[in-house]
C-alpha cells in the first residue's frame, strides 16, 4: 500500500484541530466539537444496561451501532471529501483500497484507539483490529468484565468505511445527504459489521469484521 500511515497521523495532528472562539472545530469541511468520550460512553452503556433482561438488548445494540453508521457516513465521508484529505492523503492514494487505509490512518490521529486494517478484500470484507478502544476501556473502568462486545460506535464505523467505498462511491465526492445515506446503509447488499472480540470481555484487543448482508 502506498499510504504512509505515520505521515498521515503526523499531518493530521498538525492541522491545529481545536475549537475556535465559538467553540466549534472547523475541519475537513465539517463543524466538529471536542466531545468527552466518557460522556458518550456513559449514556451508551447506561442505555444498554438499562435494557438488560428486557428482551430489547439487541434493539439497543442496533441503535448504538446505527449511531456509528451515521457518524461514519458524515464524519468519515466528510473527511474523504475534504480539502485536507486532498492535500494530505490523496497524493498517496494508488488504489481504491488505499481510501480505507488512509481513512484508518486519519482515525488514528483522533484518539479513538489504535486502528489497524488486518485484512481488506476489495468489495467483500474488512477486518480491523483496535487496540485500546475508548469504548472498551471506558467499559472496563466503570463496569465488570462484559459478557458481550461493547464497541458500538467503532462497529458502525467499520461497516461505514465499506459502505462508503463499495456500496456508494466516496471517491467521486457525492453529496452526503440523507437520501444517499439511505442508499448506502439500507441497501440490500450493504455491509454490516460484527465485533468478533472485545477488550471489554477480557480479550486482548477488539476485532471487527464487516461483510455484506446475505
Amino acid at each position, binding site marked *: 500500500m502506498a499510504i504512509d500511515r505515520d505521515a498521515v497521523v503526523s499531518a493530521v495532528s*498538525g*492541522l*491545529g484541530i481545536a475549537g*475556535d*472562539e*465559538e467553540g*466549534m472545530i*472547523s475541519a475537513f*469541511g465539517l*463543524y466538529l466539537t471536542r466531545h468527552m468520550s466518557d460522556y458518550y460512553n456513559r449514556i451508551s452503556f447506561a442505555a444498554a444496561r438499562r435494557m438488560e433482561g428486557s428482551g430489547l438488548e439487541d434493539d439497543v445494540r442496533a441503535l448504538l451501532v446505527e449511531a456509528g453508521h451515521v457518524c461514519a457516513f*458524515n464524519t468519515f465521508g466528510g473527511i474523504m471529501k*475534504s*480539502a*485536507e484529505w*486532498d*492535500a*494530505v492523503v490523496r*497524493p498517496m492514494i494508488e488504489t481504491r483500497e488505499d481510501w480505507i487505509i488512509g481513512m484508518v490512518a486519519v482515525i488514528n490521529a483522533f484518539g479513538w484507539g489504535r486502528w489497524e486494517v488486518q485484512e481488506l478484500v476489495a468489495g467483500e470484507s474488512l477486518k480491523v483490529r483496535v487496540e485500546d478502544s475508548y469504548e472498551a476501556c471506558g467499559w472496563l473502568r466503570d463496569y465488570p468484565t462484559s459478557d458481550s462486545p461493547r464497541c458500538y460506535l467503532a462497529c458502525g464505523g467499520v461497516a461505514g468505511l465499506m459502505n462508503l467505498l463499495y456500496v456508494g462511491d466516496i471517491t467521486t465526492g457525492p*453529496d*452526503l*445527504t*440523507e437520501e*444517499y445515506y439511505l442508499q448506502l446503509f439500507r441497501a440490500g447488499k450493504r455491509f454490516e459489521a460484527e465485533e468478533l472480540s472485545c477488550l471489554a470481555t477480557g480479550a486482548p484487543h477488539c476485532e471487527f469484521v464487516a461483510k455484506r448482508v446475505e
Partner: protein
Amino acid sequence: MAGHGQLVDEFEVGPVQVRVSHSCARRDVYELSTSPPLSEAAMEWLRGRGVAKVDSPALLIVEVAGVHQLTVAPALGRVVAMPKLATERPEQREAAMAVARALTAS
C-alpha cells in the same frame, strides 16, 4: 428546508466554480474550485485574509476572525469557506463571493 449536505446552489464566478452545501440551520459551506494549481498571487491574497493555522506547500488553513475559515488545497485549485456561527447567511455568501472574485482576478 434543505437537509445536511444537500447542494443548495451551484454557479460560476468567472473560472471559479462555486458549490454551496447546506451545513446546518445557520450555515452553508462554500466550495470554490478553479483550474489548478492556485497562483502564488492567489495564495498571498488568501494568506492575507487572517491568521494561518497551517501554511505548507500542500495545505493552507486561514482563520478569518468572525467571518469564516478558509481551507486551501492549492495543488487542486480548491478553497473551502466554512462560515462562523455568528454570521448570517447573506454575510456568509458575500464573504465567499469576495474570495471567488479574488481567485478570478488572480
